[in-house]
């Protein structure tokens, strides 16, 4: 097996993991604060669509990324408003966001992109080579990535720092575990949850931008293709820890890249068994002992100061 092949494989695994990881990290913010987020799929799709639309009209990828961030944040705000202020069932809110996002992005995509003939071909985000490191054999590819990948890495580091080494992060965790205790300590549960869900939405939106601006350079209806759900699986798998979740995403990405390569080698296995490989591997890993992960205690429970259940 050649060096190129391995470094191609690494790069492919990474590319397949990046949108998942954005979604998972976005979900992490929300869920650590106690707000369940099944709506990652819809947020990804919204980010993808808005970045495509903006870049299509402005020709500027940065504008695209920025609007994806804002749009993701707005969907997050909607989710927060529904779950935190109105205390709508968090699961239903997420499912509804997915449905609405699927419908609206497809609807708008047809209005915007179909009128102009041919495929939209969007500019791409430039690659940045990190000097010296980019020249290392095999792993060098990891340092020849576009800015969104580096941003993702910094988000992982920053999120870890934020959660465990800042006061706000402490507040966030407290709110997710025992909101009433946080409330009595003078923390505004509502504010923290809003911030968390909106920030999370912004991050997921960037994942959508990556999908469009880095991976395929055009928008397609329902192009998130279930990534939001895999991101949730990764989040649980990674035990709601930024690094753990990222590694779980990497596992999904790497097995996906692997199965595509097995197919490419014409190994005589029905393709369906290869397509299901990432899911099977994850399932076996869970069953085989990586197992137990305890969610934030207050996950999914709306907080109401006047109720007996804290």
């Amino acid at each position, binding site marked *: 097996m050649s060096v190129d*092949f391995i470094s191609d494989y690494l790069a492919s695994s990474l590319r397949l993991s990046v949108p998942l990881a954005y979604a998972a990290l976005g979900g992490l913010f929300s869920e650590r604060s106690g707000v369940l987020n099944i709506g990652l799929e819809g947020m990804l799709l919204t980010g993808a669509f808005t970045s495509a639309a903006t870049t299509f009209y402005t020709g500027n990828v940065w504008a695209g990324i920025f609007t994806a961030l804002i749009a993701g944040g707005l969907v997050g705000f909607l989710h927060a408003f529904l779950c935190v202020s109105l205390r709508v069932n968090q699961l239903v809110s997420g499912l509804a966001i997915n449905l609405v996002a699927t419908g609206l992005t497809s609807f708008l995509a047809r209005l915007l992109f179909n009128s102009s003939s041919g495929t939209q071909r969007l500019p791409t985000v430039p690659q940045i080579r990190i000097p010296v490191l980019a020249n290392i054999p095999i792993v060098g590819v990891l340092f020849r990535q576009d800015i969104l990948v580096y941003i993702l890495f910094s988000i992982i580091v920053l999120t870890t720092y934020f959660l465990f080494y800042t006061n706000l992060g402490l507040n966030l965790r407290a709110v997710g575990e025992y909101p009433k205790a946080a409330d009595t300590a003078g923390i505004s549960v509502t504010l923290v949850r809003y911030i968390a869900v909106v920030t999370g939405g912004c991050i997921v939106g960037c994942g959508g931008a990556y999908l469009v601006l880095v991976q395929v350079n055009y928008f397609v209806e329902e192009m998130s293709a279930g990534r939001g759900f895999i991101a949730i699986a990764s989040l649980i798998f990674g035990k709601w820890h930024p690094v753990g979740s990222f590694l779980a995403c990497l596992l999904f990405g790497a097995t996906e890249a692997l199965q*595509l390569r097995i*197919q*490419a080698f014409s190994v005589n296995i029905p393709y*369906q068994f290869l*397509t299901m490989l990432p899911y099977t591997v994850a399932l076996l890993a869970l069953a085989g002992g990586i197992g137990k992960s305890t969610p934030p205690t207050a996950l999914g429970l709306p907080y109401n100061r006047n109720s007996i259940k804290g």
Partner: protein
Amino acid sequence: SNQTSSTTSNNSGGFKIAIALPGVISDKAWNQSGYEGVQLAKQKLGVEIAHVEKVTQADQTEVLSDFARRGYNLVIAHGGQFDAAISQIAPQFLDTFFIGVNGSVSGANIASLRIDHLQVSYLCGIIAASMTKSNKLAYIAGQEFQATQEELRGFELGAKSIKKDIQIASTFTGDWNDVAKAKEATLALISTGADVIYQWLDSASPAVLQTASDKGVYAFGNTKDQSDVAPKAVLTSAVKHLDVAITYLVELAQKKELKGQIYKLGLERPDILTLGKFSQIVSQPIQKQALNTKQQIVDKKITFVNCQEAGKNTLCIKKV
């Protein structure tokens, strides 16, 4: 926009046709071509049209029977997956004619329309085998079913008619919407050495072609002439004018000449199935060879027949 489906207003006497599409009409490929088919028929023949997109398998029978019940004269089901539903529904509505595109059913009021995908992929196989340096070709599609299998087989037969020991890898992504995955699948194929790629994808096909172009390998367009998507990579395209084919059958139906049979349309109808523009990269001798073979197929000097290979039913070439 061009959402011009008619309402059911009863300007009776008019010929009414409807199409049920498994996917979205904006996919720039299979479903869109079906949609364009009924649009073309409306334009050319003045028929009244209606369509439904995203018909899931659970909805097929409902959609077909509902159109029939509303008095549509012709109901087109766009995809082989409708075959079972057609055989279930058609006997109950003898006043309506059903057409299964890509199907293999026929009956009193059932016809199937099949494009002979294999003929044109055979030609592409010849071109691919002549262009490859690595002796590795690749086929990529969303899912495996009869049409993709036939197309792959044609590609293989064509390639092997040039180079016996050539290798062909195939990848099925399992999801027609997942463009990013299709792109990664292409990259995986390229990284294992494939240097000519034949693809059949909907929304994802531009991603495959552009990736091939970026990586300096060759590819074929499919369904439409896609040479403008990635001029450096696309050698030629397997052009399938489904809209024309559909209009042709609609016209037959309008004239009450449609028969309960399988209409297999191939290279003999260049307005329906043909090779697209050749890229300059494809040398004249190769182009000529492809075109010669095409003529042989049209003249039925080369035909494809059922046979067994390695214990499996498949298709083989028969040269006369």
